[in-house]
């Protein structure tokens, strides 16, 4: 297992505000890595920087050793980066199936139609509701279904890395449960590598192997998920545990 993604000293500014102040992280092939943190900590910015939706001030991002900065943003899909953005961002007036098919746009010259059809069948098995509603406009789906569609749209290109931004945002607890079950399932069945950004730290550390915690644009703590779950600081701040008594 080699290194899949490595980010070094990433700095991103929004105007005069430093959103990311020099972040480094690393991810192995076939891994699930969680990035946790409060609102405004820079989690979404990190994913947007990897996808080049925001301008990178300095630092490098490499996928399997290849510097991503030499590709324009629209070519990242074709080299194996799939980004499921925060708030799902399904194309509301396109049908479910059109949304899924657009997920193949970046790789349409690399993967043949049969292969795509096979992946689509797999996605329909993961999310049977998408098959039922495939002729419906995506905007008519419920929030949970839209999230499933957004994940399916990311998976259909068989990406090397799936960037998942807050998949549980705004969903009812039972759907959050379902989404995390599927995240585990796509990882177990197809070995998809997932970089997961979440506010729901408990759930995220439940599926991830390794975790990073962002605080105001910097990595505050990182370590194996099992270890983070037991870390007193993490418990206090992110897992809603009992307050840690200051050591005497």
């Amino acid at each position, binding site marked *: 297992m080699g290194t899949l993604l490595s980010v070094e000293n990433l700095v991103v500014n929004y105007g005069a505000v430093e959103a990311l102040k020099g972040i480094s992280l690393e991810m192995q092939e076939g891994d699930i890595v969680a990035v946790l943190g409060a609102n405004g900590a820079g989690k979404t910015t990190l994913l947007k920087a990897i*996808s080049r*939706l925001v301008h990178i001030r300095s630092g490098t991002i490499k996928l399997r050793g290849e510097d991503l900065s030499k590709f*324009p*943003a*629209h*070519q*990242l*899909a*074709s080299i194996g980066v*799939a*980004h499921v*953005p925060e708030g799902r*961002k399904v*194309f*509301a*007036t*396109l049908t479910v199936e*059109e949304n899924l*098919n*657009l*997920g*193949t*746009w*970046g*790789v*349409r010259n690399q993967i043949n139609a049969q292969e795509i059809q096979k992946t689509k069948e797999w996605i329909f098995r993961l999310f049977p509701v998408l098959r039922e509603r495939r002729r419906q406009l995506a*905007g008519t789906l419920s929030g949970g279904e839209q999230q499933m569609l957004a994940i399916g*749209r990311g998976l259909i*290109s068989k990406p090397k890395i799936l960037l998942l931004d807050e998949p549980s945002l705004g969903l009812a607890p039972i759907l959050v449960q379902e989404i995390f079950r599927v995240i585990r399932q796509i990882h177990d069945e197809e070995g998809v590598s997932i970089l997961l950004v979440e506010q729901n730290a408990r759930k995220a550390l439940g599926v991830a192997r390794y975790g990073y915690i962002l605080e105001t644009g910097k990595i505050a703590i990182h370590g194996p998920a099992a270890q983070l779950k037991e870390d007193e600081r993490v418990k206090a701040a992110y897992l809603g545990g009992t307050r840690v008594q200051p050591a005497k």
Partner: protein
Amino acid sequence: MRIFLEQFLNGLTIGSFYALVALGYSMVYGVMKLINFAHGDLFALGSYLGYTVLVIGAGWITQVLGVWGGVAVALTAAMLGIGIAGLVVERIAYRPVYKAGRLPLVVSALGMSIFISNGIMAIWGPRFQAYPPDAIPSAILSFGDIKITVIKLVTLIVSLGLMALIYWMVEKTLFGAAVRATALDRDTATLMGIDFRKIILFVFFVGPALGAMAGVFAGLNYGRIIFNLGWTYGLKAFTATILGGIGNIPGAMIGGLLLGVMESLFEGFVSGAWKSVFVFLVLIAILIVRPTGLIGEKVAEKV
């Protein structure tokens, strides 16, 4: 009945011009959220380009290929030329000011409109120009006492056929889905791997090319063209765009055809002088009931 049918056909013909021009407004608006005010003038420029091809070609193209061959050459040349002109307009008038926001874009669009219509006047002169009569197919078909020129029939068939093609392309293919996705959400479309610059080039080529076709057909059907043709047709086509619901393809087509038919029937049965008043009254009425246009709910959902 005879008047009704003739006026209905006339209305469909002029409506297909409106619809073709409206498609260009709507496609560009959908992707760029920009009203390309130069679009009507590109339509006029297309008409003049077709005129020039026919004037030059009357001697030999028409000799070799016949009248219809000449028409086909004029249409093709105008569509290609104006498609390229559309790309040039995007490159010099819009691309440099994209980042400046929407108002500078609108000003730039208005400037381009004035530039093109005055350019036409400078090149071809301020007076009416007549399409060369011997380059216009003159056959007439009679159905009972209803007479229709063959060129009108061809105009209708070709226009409707091309609209069907565009509809299919935008609404039924993966490429079309990419165009619509870009119109909805450029960032997310980029995440899918869609290069929005290519989509922009597509709408700035196809839109004006469709307009140019309408321009040449208008010249062939009515015989005379003038430099500010883009203003009169452009305004009506823009109205049709709003009527149908801006930003969506079927809306532009239906809006255009409906506008043409209403205008023509009113002209035939009530008054030619008041037809524009009638058309705009209908527009106002429809916008009061459906502010997003006839097929505009999709846009409303987005905004």
